[in-house]
């Protein structure tokens, strides 16, 4: 049985939430939180900012926010990883807009940094296996989206473009773009249950 399947059948396999302990000021929980999610958040920030230096600064800001605002996390509204991703994405897009670095994007940044030596992966083996299985499953869900829907969603999510900017970029009517994004999001929402 795969780890993803185990996740769905056995709630005890799901990594326990660390944010309540972080909210109580437990430093070890904060370090575990970093080890568990930093590589996901860093990949997201590199994708948004296309620049490792900016991505590291915003990653730091994200964890400062997590440390100071952990008590604001509400598990009823969403998962721990989604909460952290929302903070990182929001700050990444703010940085992107304020520094206007869109034109300087380094498309290969992700690949470059992955070969830099000196990293210590502290994610536990169990967490790694679960995250890896989940990532494969998430990618499966994303590849089910028609290319046009995924492209419109990615332009909004990773580049912070507005509806009209996306329509302009794709040379499509605004209504077409809105419909594509709404259909794409509906499909992702339908698949969400498998990843909670």
């Amino acid at each position, binding site marked *: 049985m795969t780890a993803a399947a185990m996740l769905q059948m056995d709630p005890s396999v799901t990594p326990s939430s660390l944010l309540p302990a972080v909210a109580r000021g437990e430093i070890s929980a*904060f*370090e575990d939180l*970093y*080890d568990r999610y*930093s*590589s*996901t958040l*860093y*990949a997201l920030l*590199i*994708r948004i900012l296309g620049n490792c230096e900016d991505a*590291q600064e915003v*990653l*730091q*800001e994200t*964890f*400062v926010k997590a440390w100071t605002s952990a008590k604001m996390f509400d598990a009823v*509204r*969403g998962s721990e*990883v*989604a909460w952290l*991703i929302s903070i*990182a994405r929001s*700050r990444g897009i*703010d940085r992107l807009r*304020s520094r206007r670095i869109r034109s300087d994007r380094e498309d290969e940044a*992700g690949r470059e*940094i*992955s070969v*830099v030596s000196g*990293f210590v992966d*502290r994610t536990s083996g169990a967490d790694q296996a679960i*995250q890896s299985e989940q*990532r494969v499953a998430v990618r499966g*869900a*994303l590849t089910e989206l028609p290319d046009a829907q995924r492209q419109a*969603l990615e332009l*909004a*999510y*990773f580049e*912070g*473009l*507005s509806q*009209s900017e*996306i329509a302009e970029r794709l040379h*499509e*009517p*605004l*209504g*077409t773009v809105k*419909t594509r*994004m*709404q259909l794409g*999001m*509906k499909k*992702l*929402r339908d698949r*969400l249950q498998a*990843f*909670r």
Partner: protein
Amino acid sequence: MNHDEFEAIAALDAVGAATAEEARSLAAHAESCDACRRARDEYAEAATLLARGLEPVLPPAEVRERIAGISEPSNIAEAEYRFSTWWLATAATLFLALWGWREIGIRVARERIATQQAEIHGLSEEKNRLAAQNEKLASIAGADTRTIALAGQEMSPLASARVFLDPTRRRAIVFFYNLPSNPTDKSYQLWIIRGDQPNPQSAGVFDVTASGNASISIDNLPVMTEIRALAVTLEPRGGAEQPTEKKFYVMGGMS
């Protein structure tokens, strides 16, 4: 606005693509509507799948060290305990106070900058919305604007529509009249039938209320190619990639 319309906004808001006005109206509505609040939260969670599908990249070790330092005042307290000299304790306290004050100052400044950036972004969106409205008015009143009538079809013979086609701005604004209001699980969808493509192209979805009237604006109209006709079908809520119904509600040639 009904729940379905708020859900449609929630889908866009999750990827940051709702306009400032849409985001504000959704936030206000979600305060008092459990279903829409749940939909908003689920869409927000679903959007994070886009990030969760990326190949993870390990940050350099020094980033971890810097971040771990965020929570280190207690280490200084331990040092205070080990070296119980009063002056060291005083110095540590003073350092903590200054350090804490500086950190608070930096955080407050960052929060203020973030808030101001959000306000600037909101004002900019508002300005864009007003500019878009002016553009639409200009399109309707433009010297080159053509007016084309669309007629009700088999599904709604009494319906009609008027198209204001502004080739200069590559825009068309369509006003619909006497269309039956759509069921909550359906949306009307406007299609462009082009001479250079075998399949119709979606120009957007819209709802019709009890008044029977609605309007939709088509931007980036492909004016360089032959637009043979515009047609409206009733589709599943949110629209479809291609028409699922062969019966039209309103249709008309553009030439």
